């Protein structure tokens, strides 16, 4: 006897007619919900997310379908849980398609049956596996939500409704299978390895009872499926469509690049104040959120108790978009902390003020942790900066502290109140002359490396020590370098991140104009913010340069033997921990070179903080936050300093003047000045240099 089964066993023609007729409902509900969402996206501004189709498709397959961005080393439980849910559902879905193909297409149209023999046995094996995976995934999800309870996990009724439906679908499938086997007693029943033992128990019941139970559960199974499918587009389960689409249409530009406002002079409105001001891709972004909370895990504001929670910000906007689009929101959230609870509050609200508060927007340090860890490539930072742009350029609403910064940038080309002609005053503290670009060019001399010092490195007494240290290293390595000196201006990064795009573009164009006057091979800078602006944003305005961070250059110099380190002159020995600055780490993927440098330092043992590399925790100074007061929650810099101290290290190695400033404050804040210090990478290296030429180290180290 060939193994197979009767499809729709115990189900009459009327039931089949009813089943296929009722199919109209889930299809209509899904189409309605998706049409609504697409119509909302189309209200957004144009943005080019087209082209590079192969890259997009590969990314969507790797990162979404094959869970490349969902299963991560530190997210194994959640990743496996999702893989079970996804894999189980897909197996069962394909299983249903196979049955439908046999019953509705190949047999009636071609008289060909394939649903038998070994194929059928393999099918049974796999479908049972799919059901078990689905149940396992749901049980893991419930354990995670009710037992493990990560602090960033939020559980609303919607989450549980969906999980319960998935579990019930699988249980119903097993029950229906077991009830049929209980009557039919297939000789190959054991291939249904989960429902077969159940069917043996059912064999003890009367056939009529089993048939009744089977009929009821068969209908229950299909009605649950229809309700689930109908609900799909109105719940977070819509991410099945939107996340995949979002990953496919993800931005392929560098993560650190913030798009400029095009035609700034001609623009009639600035930034984002209404739904229609978002780009279509950003509106798709908010619909792609699957509420996992990974954006919160390393978020400095969430972890220090501030207003901004990136996930909630996205969900607030998603809810507002749903209200505007007239989509029924299936989210029955929990009142206290759930952004989703506020869905359905109506479309007649102001985006900034009612939906998203200015406090949330100003909290952001633009560290990018949310974007880096989002499994579906949601880009929180550009949206936040977009709304900041509206507050600054259109409403004139921004923290008072920024007034000084804007004034300084406008008048002095630096966020600090130092005149332009003091930019190269630090050179007097170096034991040897520091070449100036203009002088070199006037003399017709070639320059290999342009050292872009940055505003903090030029004016701030603490950061000047880094500048001097890097100068010493460059001199020691015999690099043909020069600085812009009094010609250097702010790259515009602080203004750009707080939303003053007008000022940012002005400064950026000024800097590009200056840089374009000269000929050099590459730029080196100790400031990750300058690095990111020059590398990723200047190409938008015609500035194309090879730029390296000082950690990369120093690592190269050590590797190639251009500088030697002397154990006897090391300024730090023992344990040193390294902090990854957001703007070279997450934004530009520079993780190994700074560690290479620390590891090369004589007598130094690199100890890692728990949150390192792309999981690094912000210093709290990015996104213009260094120029603003931190008034709510605990202080971000102190949280990070405490984490560094907990490693047992005595020195925190920084590679960014912003981080340096924040950590100096943080160390004072936690009262650890006597036992703990922060040093820039360049300082540690310069302090360990085996000098080939005499230098005035006393002058270099005096800090003034």
């Amino acid at each position, binding site marked *: 006897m060939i193994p197979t089964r009767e499809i729709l066993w115990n189900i009459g023609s009327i039931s089949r*007619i009813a089943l*296929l007729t009722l*199919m109209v409902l889930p*299809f*209509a509900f*899904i*189409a*309605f*919900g998706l049409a*609504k969402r697409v119509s909302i996206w189309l209200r957004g501004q144009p943005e080019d997310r087209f082209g590079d189709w192969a890259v997009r498709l590969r990314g969507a397959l790797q990162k979404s379908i094959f869970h490349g961005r969902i299963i991560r080393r530190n997210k194994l439980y959640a990743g496996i849980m999702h893989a079970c849910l996804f894999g189980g559902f897909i197996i069962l879905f394909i299983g249903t398609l196979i049955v439908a193909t046999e019953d*509705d*297409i190949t*047999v*009636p149209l071609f008289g060909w049956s394939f649903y038998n023999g070994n194929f059928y046995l393999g099918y049974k094996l796999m479908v049972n596996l799919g059901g078990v995976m689905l149940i396992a995934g*749901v049980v893991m999800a*419930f354990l995670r939500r*009710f037992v493990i309870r990560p*602090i*960033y996990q939020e559980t*609303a*009724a919607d989450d*549980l*409704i969906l*999980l*319960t*439906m998935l579990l*019930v679908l699988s249980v*119903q499938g097993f029950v229906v299978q*077991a009830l049929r086997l*209980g009557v039919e007693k297939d000789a190959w029943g054991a291939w249904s390895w*989960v429902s077969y*033992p*159940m069917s*043996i*128990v*059912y*064999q*003890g019941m*009367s056939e009529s009872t089993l048939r009744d*139970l089977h009929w*009821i*559960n068969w209908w229950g199974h299909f009605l649950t499926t229809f*309700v689930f499918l109908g609900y799909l587009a109105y719940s977070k389960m819509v991410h099945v469509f939107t996340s995949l689409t979002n990953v496919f249409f993800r931005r392929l530009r560098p993560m650190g690049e913030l798009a400029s406002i095009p035609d700034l002079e001609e623009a009639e409105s600035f930034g984002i104040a209404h739904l229609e001001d978002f780009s279509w891709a950003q509106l798709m972004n908010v619909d792609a959120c699957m509420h996992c909370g990974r954006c919160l895990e390393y978020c400095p504001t*969430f*972890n220090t*108790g*501030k*207003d901004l929670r990136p996930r909630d910000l996205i969900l607030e906007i998603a809810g507002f978009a749903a209200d505007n*689009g*007239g989509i*029924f*929101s*299936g989210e*029955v959230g*929990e*009142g206290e902390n759930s952004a989703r*609870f*506020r869905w359905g509050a109506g479309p007649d609200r102001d985006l900034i003020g009612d939906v998203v508060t200015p406090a949330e927007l100003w909290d952001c340090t633009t560290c990018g942790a949310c974007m880096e860890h989002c499994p579906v490539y949601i880009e929180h930072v550009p949206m936040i900066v977009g709304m900041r742009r509206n507050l600054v350029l259109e409403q004139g609403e921004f923290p008072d502290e920024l007034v000084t910064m804007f004034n300084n940038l406008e008048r002095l080309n630096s966020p600090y109140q130092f005149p332009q002609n003091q930019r190269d005053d630090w050179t007097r503290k170096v034991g040897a002359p520091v070449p100036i670009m203009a002088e070199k060019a006037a003399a017709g001399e070639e320059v290999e490396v342009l050292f872009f010092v940055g505003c903090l490195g030029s004016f701030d007494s603490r950061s000047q020590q880094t500048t001097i240290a890097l100068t010493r290293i460059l001199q020691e390595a015999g690099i043909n370098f020069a600085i812009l000196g009094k010609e250097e201006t702010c790259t515009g990064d602080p203004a750009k991140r707080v939303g003053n795009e007008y000022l940012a573009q002005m400064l950026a164009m000024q800097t590009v104009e200056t840089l374009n006057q000269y000929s050099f091979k590459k730029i080196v800078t100790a400031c990750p913010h300058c690095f990111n602006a020059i590398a990723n944003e200047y190409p938008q305005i015609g500035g194309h340069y090879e730029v390296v961070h000082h950690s990369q250059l120093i690592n190269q110099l050590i590797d190639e033997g251009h500088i030697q380190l002397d154990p006897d002159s090391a300024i730090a020995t023992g344990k040193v921990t390294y902090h990854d600055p957001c703007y070279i780490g997450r934004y530009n993927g520079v993780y190994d070179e700074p560690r290479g440098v620390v590891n090369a330092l004589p007598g130094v043992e690199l100890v890692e903080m728990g949150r390192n590399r792309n999981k690094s925790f912000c210093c709290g100074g990015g996104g213009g936050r260094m120029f603003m007061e931190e008034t709510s*929650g605990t202080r971000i810099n102190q949280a990070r300093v*405490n984490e560094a101290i907990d490693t047992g290290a005595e020195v925190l190695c920084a590679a960014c003047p912003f981080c340096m400033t924040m950590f100096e404050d943080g160390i004072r804040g936690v009262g650890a000045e006597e036992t703990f210090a922060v040093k820039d990478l360049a300082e540690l290296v310069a302090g360990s240099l085996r000098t080939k030429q005499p230098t005035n180290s006393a002058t270099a180290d005096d800090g003034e």
Partner: protein
Amino acid sequence: MSTVEDAQATAASRLDAVRSFVGQHLRVLSIAAFALGFAGLLISELGDVHQLRVFAAGLISLGGVGIGIDTGLADPRTLRVPDWMRSRAAVIGVVSTVAAIAPAVVALVAMVGGINGADGLDRSDVAIALGLLIGFLMLIATLMTGGLTVLRIVRAAGESPADGREHAPNGEGADA
């Protein structure tokens, strides 16, 4: 213009005409597709013309998709169904959850009746025990997930949206 270009232009204009016609008459076309599909299904199942079934099901599905798109693209403020559903979300949620789990729960509980029934069956005790264990685990999982879901829906239904916005985030994840 060459003959090829003429043909391309004609094809493009026909395509535009079809697109425009479908766009303007989407609702009627969708209802017609559904009705035709339903009629085909009746013929297929009651008249034993099963070759029709897949086409009938396709038309029904297409009709559903068309109706969904047509209403989905309509002015949101004229749609009352979403508001109605939102205002009854809790009731719908509870009823759906209970209705979904009830048949499976009944069937799983009914397994008890199969332990000792039907004399003369050659069933091993181990197989019965294993079957019962699987059924029991499924029953527990179904009841627990369903119960937690109903409780969460009921709890959430008692809260008002305004409360949520008023409540400032409390920094539950604060390092301090």
